[in-house]
């Protein structure tokens, strides 16, 4: 016979209102029909969560829980108030990597639900900030059994701690005409080449890859990934002038000028007298704005590929950093292209492993050693696209100038050939 529901006067106040309530969900699991373990676990959890709301404090601590063969992927949670809420005293999370783009069929989701109802709390977050399926709330003695079943379904564990982390990508070519590369394929190719570094973390700190198909960065890669891979193109933007004229008619000329022409960050656009678009492609920075507004009339060019920004991270320890350009353009179509990206990604990881201080992210390491040292170590060619502007401070030794100028001339000659 299951126990009584704990009183939850504060949480109850989160059951009203139009947005779906997680509290109602927790209560459904707590009520259950008594035949599943989750009803006891969730009664206890609701008690602890209400206690947090009353006292405005969290009561979970970490520990060491894992599955056989892996060194990461289970987030252990032990309750500090287990004497009051014993049935949720162990409430571990299994991080499981979804398919890129978060695609599911219902058979798969239902199977996951059944497994988690049998072995866990019945609570699943879709998805965590890193991009994992979070199977939340598992007793230590159920972790291996739950994992075995999820793994047999064809899913693998995600990252945690000082290793390569689970990745995220935008919907990409599966449902977006703006995707400049196959984000889903790139995600899968890179991540599945780093499974050892995901499952057995041994880096100075975490390393994240994320994939967005264009400058809109729907995967929020630029600041949230150590290595952000963003789609772009090299040739001219594609323009269907008849559709431009239709868009001008739809918005009205003044609004078209306000919403499209004036919003171009580099003033690369003009409206011709016949309501066609004048594009200065040399000034265009591939920002996507006009393409977002005129989805029928405008498209990225055909010579598509990726740019790579490195070093994004949040505040700890030196302050927020955005990723900055280390590769302005590379193709990502053939097997050779993918092999080149994989080689670069491995070089980035190796250099990070060898040179970062403990608990230092890639961006902080680059801040400490300077971008040029990073580029030279990785053999990445210098490019003017890597800077906002040249240095403004004269305190730099320039006695290698002639040699560097010669290298630049040589690169230019090689590129022209």
């Amino acid at each position: 016979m299951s126990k009584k529901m704990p009183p939850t006067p504060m949480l109850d106040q989160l059951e009203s209102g139009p947005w779906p309530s997680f509290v109602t969900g927790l209560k459904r699991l707590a009520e259950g029909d008594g035949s599943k373990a989750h009803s006891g676990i969730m009664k206890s959890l609701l008690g602890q969560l209400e206690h947090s709301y009353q006292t405005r404090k969290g009561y979970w601590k970490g520990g060491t829980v894992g599955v056989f063969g892996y060194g990461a992927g289970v987030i252990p949670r032990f309750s500090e108030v287990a004497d009051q809420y014993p049935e949720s005293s162990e409430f571990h999370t299994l991080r499981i990597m979804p398919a890129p783009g978060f695609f599911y069929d219902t058979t798969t989701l239902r199977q996951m639900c059944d497994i988690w109802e049998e072995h866990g709390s019945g609570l699943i977050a879709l998805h965590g900030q890193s991009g994992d399926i979070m199977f939340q709330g598992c007793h230590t003695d159920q972790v291996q059994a739950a994992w075995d079943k999820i793994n047999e379904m064809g899913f693998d564990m995600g990252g945690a701690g000082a290793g390569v982390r689970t990745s995220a990508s935008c919907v990409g070519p599966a449902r977006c005409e703006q995707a400049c590369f196959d984000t889903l394929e790139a995600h899968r190719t890179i991540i599945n080449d780093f499974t050892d570094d995901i499952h057995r973390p041994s880096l100075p700190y975490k390393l994240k890859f994320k994939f967005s198909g264009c400058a809109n960065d729907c995967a929020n890669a630029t600041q949230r990934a150590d290595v952000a891979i963003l789609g772009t193109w090299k040739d001219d933007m594609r323009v269907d002038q008849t559709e431009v004229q239709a868009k001008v008619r739809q918005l009205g000329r003044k609004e078209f000028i306000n919403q499209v022409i004036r919003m171009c960050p580099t003033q690369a656009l003009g409206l011709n007298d016949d309501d066609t678009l004048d594009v200065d492609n040399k000034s265009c920075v591939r920002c996507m704005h006009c393409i977002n507004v005129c989805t029928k009339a405008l498209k990225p060019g055909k010579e598509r590929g990726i740019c790579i920004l490195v070093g994004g991270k949040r505040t700890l320890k030196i302050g927020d950093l955005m990723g900055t350009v280390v590769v302005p353009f590379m193709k990502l179509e053939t097997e050779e292209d993918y092999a080149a990206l994989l080689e670069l990604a491995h070089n980035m990881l190796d250099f990070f492993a060898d040179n970062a201080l403990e608990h230092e992210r890639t961006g902080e390491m680059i801040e400490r050693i300077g971008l040029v040292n990073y580029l030279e170590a990785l053999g990445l060619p210098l490019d003017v696209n890597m800077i906002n502007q040249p240095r403004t401070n004269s305190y730099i030794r320039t006695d290698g100038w002639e040699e560097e100028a010669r290298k630049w001339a040589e690169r230019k000659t090689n590129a022209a050939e």
Partner: protein
Amino acid sequence: MSELRRPIESGVPDSKQFMHPALVRNYGKWAFHDRPRPGVLRHVAESGEAVFTVKAGTQRQLDVFTIRKLCDIADAFCDGHLRFTVRSSAEFMTTDESKVEPLIKRLETEGFPVGGTGNSVGFISHTQGWLHCDIPGTDASGVVKALMDELVHEFKSEEMPNRVKITTSCCQINCGGQGDIAINVQHTKPPVINHALVAGVCERPAVIARCPVAAIRPALVDGKPSLEVDEKKCVCCGACYPPCPPMQINDPIHSKIAIWVGGKHSSTRTKPMFHKLVAAGLPNNAPRWPEVAEVVKNILTVYKNDARAWERMGEWIERIGWPRFFELTELPFTKYHVDNWRGGRANLNASAHLHF
């Protein structure tokens, strides 16, 4: 005892096995998209085939009954396929236009608001909080639920100048990331140290190294090795707490909530921007955080009324200037808004450009 099972180190699975067949058919061959109404996207392939996507908000922390309900809907309308967005909305796809309205009705009836497309307020990105995190200053799920109740109209319509991405974070590590509006815990007092536990629990050199302002040093307290904090130097960031739980940073009264605005990841129009502090000292007032909701709604209203079409929050403020932002929102401007972190001089006005 039976032999332990070795993991199948399969990595991430191939998405195509889960995708709606129309997406597989037209993979990489899309021509354009538009939005017939808020909450609905129409993608047209080069072949002429159209796919309708209906987007619905969820509570992210999903019980299996809710997931099965989403599955029932996907089985009834979408041949058993669905996907999720990075902001935990569920997307239902069908090639049959006649199914769109019934699908919307079904989702709304089952309690899932349809919206989040175009220039709307999307679902608030979400951390773990008291439900599961080991270091949280507040509860993410509760803050998000309380706010989305108030913002549901803005989720379901497309009336904003541009999309608004709101994030929450339960500590200053800020797992929620950059946002047009970020709602983050901001501690205001140094950690309270349980000296009896430090030596046994904490790797002291690692904790000292973690402090961004070198305010922690080793100390002997009551004859036991421990750590002490130079409280004049301490910026109350809480970075010492995860590696050393006896250095308790969370406090029911002194852990406050701060609001930051104008962050964006995208390179669309302007380059990516960090969010900037605009309000702090708000109480961590569970279960519905009304003071936070009031500030957020005020900022959203001012932005909605004043920004030009397609200006993200940060771009709008860059155009009108910060004096105008503080004037319009009537938020107090304090010494805490003036950046004194390394590189912070770049955030000062080194010009004769003045707003009056």
